């Protein structure tokens, strides 16, 4: 005869057994590292990497251009790099959105069999190695690359276009890499779109443009928001794409962080930059959470 307490305690035991691995894993190798990074960002950089355990808020000061000593003047170079990273990430979001939005409608109108095949085709490049995909665009965009050769051979341009090592190349590369990220959330939303609402709008006399702006767009907005966030986050922190396709001309915050850690060995400054990115990510996610919960509250009312 088992008592009520042992039934409950067995359940608790099973739950503990199931949850302890992930708790240990994410506690020790995720939350604690992030915590250490926060602490480091307020410490003085050591001479040969590492940190000195003294309070040092100037890592953040340096980001906004604060002069550290008499030889430096106020120069917000890191801030301007951060702002241009924001710009590149935002443009990446906008272009991948423009590409994926019509494609989502294209797929949603297909028969079931074709649909699952095309969805598979769109998801698959996500699993292609990041470097392989960047490599492909290096070959395409080079002055002696495929695109320039094609343009020259049909006589569209006389001199090869200087496409590589520019913001343009970085944005093209990132749009290419993050397209599956943008597509899937939008598609999930478009797929659920109730076409009787579209018909109702037209029946009530709305023009196609009005129907799009006032019915289709608002209804697919959650997918657009979701896809935008999922693309914006990795785009903002990216350093591999700009280091290959941007060369030395395009600097993003990710490149600064990489260099702080692996070259100049100024870990606290790199940590502060990383937290700047984290803060932007948290802001964007919070904005979306507030927006969607407000929409839900409106829906409930």
């Amino acid at each position: 005869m088992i008592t009520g307490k042992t039934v409950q305690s067995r359940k608790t035991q099973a739950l503990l057994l199931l949850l302890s691995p992930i708790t240990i894993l994410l506690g020790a190798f995720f939350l604690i590292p992030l915590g250490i990074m926060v602490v480091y960002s307020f410490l003085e950089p050591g001479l040969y990497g590492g940190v000195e355990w003294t309070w040092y808020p100037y890592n953040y000061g340096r980001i906004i251009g604060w002069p550290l000593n008499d030889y430096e003047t106020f120069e917000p170079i890191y801030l301007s790099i951060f702002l241009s990273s924001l710009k590149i990430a935002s443009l990446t979001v906008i272009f991948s959105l423009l590409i994926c939005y019509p494609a989502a409608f294209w797929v949603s109108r297909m028969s079931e069999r074709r649909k699952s095949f095309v969805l598979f085709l769109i998801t698959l490049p996500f699993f292609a190695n990041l470097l392989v995909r960047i490599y492909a665009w290096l070959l395409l965009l080079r002055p002696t690359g495929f695109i320039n050769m094609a343009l020259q051979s049909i006589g569209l341009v006389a001199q090869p276009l200087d496409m590589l090592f520019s913001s343009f190349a970085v944005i093209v590369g990132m749009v290419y890499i993050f397209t599956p990220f943008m597509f899937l959330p939008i598609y999930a939303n478009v797929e659920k779109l109730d076409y009787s609402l579209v018909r109702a709008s037209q029946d009530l006399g709305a023009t196609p443009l009005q129907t799009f702006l006032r019915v289709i767009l608002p209804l697919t907005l959650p997918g657009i928001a979701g896809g935008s966030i999922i693309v914006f986050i990795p785009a903002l922190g990216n350093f591999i794409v700009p280091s290959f396709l941007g060369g030395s001309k395009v600097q993003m915050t990710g490149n600064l962080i990489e260099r702080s850690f692996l070259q100049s060995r100024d870990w606290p400054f790199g940590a502060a930059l990383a937290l700047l990115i984290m803060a932007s990510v948290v802001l964007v996610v919070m904005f979306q959470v507030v927006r969607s919960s407000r929409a839900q509250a409106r829906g409930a009312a």
Partner: protein
Amino acid sequence: MGFLQIASAHKAYQTPEGTLVRALDDITINVRSNEFLTLLGPSGCGKTTLLKTIAGFEDLDGGDLILEGRSLKAVPAHRRPFNTVFQNYALFPHMNVSQNIAYGLDVAGVKKAERDRRVGEALEMVGLAGYGGRKPSQLSGGQQQRVALARSLVLKPRVLLLDEPLSALDRKMRETMQIELKNLQNSVGITFIFVTHDQEEALAMSDRIAVLSHGKVQQLGSPNDVYDTPANEFVANFVGTSNLFSGRIVENDAARGLVTIETANGRRLIASGRDFANGSAVKMVLRPEHLRLVDTGEFEGAGTLEGQVKDVIFVGSVIHVHVDVGFGRTAIVHHHHDRAGIRNAIEAGANVRIAYSPSSAHLIAAERG
């Protein structure tokens, strides 16, 4: 001491919106051995929750569950001598029919030879001999239903719990299975606790019915009791169709067992009844099939009502006549249409007289508020 006692069972849960729902609010039922007990009620009345707590899938907040004097509260689902037939049958899709039926015997450690024999018998019992090798997905709804029954009955449970098992079947199949289930229960001699929201199903199959609403037992009795003498307004309305007239008892003829009630606007109606004192507020329940449309002068001494026909609805076996009886109420009369003479008179706008036998009028206490 009953066979299985459900003793003031309580269970409440919080909805996502934050309101507290009392799914089981002090439920006490003494389940008898070998009976076919139906838990009847609308969705959300607590009947499925009650079944789940008996099966052991959910715990009680308060109260107890006692099988032959032994509390089951601390016994987990897999150790209770009860088996369930699920609403969606819950057949394991990765096992074939025989493996499904053998599952319970297998986990109980029954030897293969014995297991095969009993699976064979169970298949025979539900008329599916030869189907053992099929996958559940290759069976029709009715066949899946039988496999689910066989899978439970092969373990010879003390109680078989059935959670709306017929609701997924079409009407014809449902009626066939009703009879089969009832016969099966007679032949295996196992207590069945059957959950349904379908009052006709409940009336047709049960030895006793427990009508549930808002987590409370509204009435527990035989199908006849529940239908003829509903305990309250809810039961009167939920089981069958009722005409309800509220009023106050103004005369009490104890010798003849008759009372007279007066409605709010002075209409007097007679009914048989002894349980209510003068002045008490009551409701009179009249079943539509107990009302008759009569010519003036007929049925002296019977209860009568006059009114004007509002709607006449022909449903085949009977005609539903909606009569405005004056005091803000509409009476529904199920009129048999073989009497051609009167039928002509029944049309919207006609003045008619309704008669009923006082003994068919059932009185219930008016609920407060």
